[in-house]
């Protein structure tokens, strides 16, 4: 006997209905999953933002100390004081290392800030070696280190300022 597609028994219609209900349920589940994923992403972004803000605030507290250290370093270079300059270069390595630990891990900006700090740490180390040789004037023996410290400090101050401005905008 020939049957058309709609010419079904009631049990077969039940099967079709069940299939449609399953499809609908699947759609609802997919929508909920998507909403959950978006909520999780938003929560993750908010958490990253908060940790970056906290880091920026902590670095902001340390920047004046770094500026003071750089000023003292400049004074010791000006007075050609070899021992004091070595002392401040060593202190810079220590302080810069501390700030390094607070900087965000992700993003190219974080990378660049860290690399600049790391450069200043390495150059402070080699300037100490140059100063220990004791033959050249102090300025000549730590010029590159001082320049790198200046670059790193400017970069850090700029980042702290930008983070602070973003944070204020978000509050508004």
């Amino acid at each position, binding site marked *: 006997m020939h049957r058309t597609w709609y010419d079904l028994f009631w049990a077969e219609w039940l099967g079709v209905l069940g299939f449609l209900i399953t499809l609908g349920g699947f759609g609802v589940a997919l929508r909920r999953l998507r909403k959950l994923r978006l909520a999780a992403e938003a929560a993750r972004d908010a958490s990253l933002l908060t940790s970056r803000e906290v880091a920026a605030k902590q670095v902001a507290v340390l920047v004046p100390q770094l500026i003071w250290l750089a000023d003292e370093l400049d004074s010791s270079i000006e007075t050609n004081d070899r021992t004091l300059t070595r002392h401040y270069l060593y202190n810079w390595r220590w302080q810069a290392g501390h700030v*390094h*630990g607070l900087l965000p891990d992700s993003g190219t900006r974080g990378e660049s800030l*860290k*690399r600049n700090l790391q450069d200043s740490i390495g150059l402070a180390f080699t*300037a100490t070696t140059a100063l220990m040789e004791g033959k050249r004037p102090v300025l000549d023996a730590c010029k*590159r280190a001082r320049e790198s410290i200046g670059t790193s400090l400017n970069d850090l101050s700029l980042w702290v300022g930008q983070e602070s401005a973003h944070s204020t905008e978000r509050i508004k």
Partner: protein
Amino acid sequence: MTPETFLRMKRIVQKLIEQTEIGSIEWKLTDDEKSFLHSTSNSSIVVTRRRGALAGPVELTVLNKLGREVETISTRQTIDEVDAKQELEDLWELARQSALKVNEELDQVLEELDEE
């Protein structure tokens, strides 16, 4: 230095040689004219030729992100392997060439001589 640390330092030297040769890393000039610096975002590597009567020993120092010296390997140390000593010497020369941009400078000299 333990044998394990020595092997790691040796591997670092080899990697630095490879990457300097292909130009994927660059070295910087420092205030000490015989020292050259390469920094990553979490460490600084300094390769130095110490003063000596002739060519002084070569040292490679790794500084961590806290500015502390993590480890130093030197041709002056009793390195049993001749290879390791030669690799350190090669690295210093490659770092010097990279920091001073020796090949670029020489190309420029050649160009200028051709123009005369």
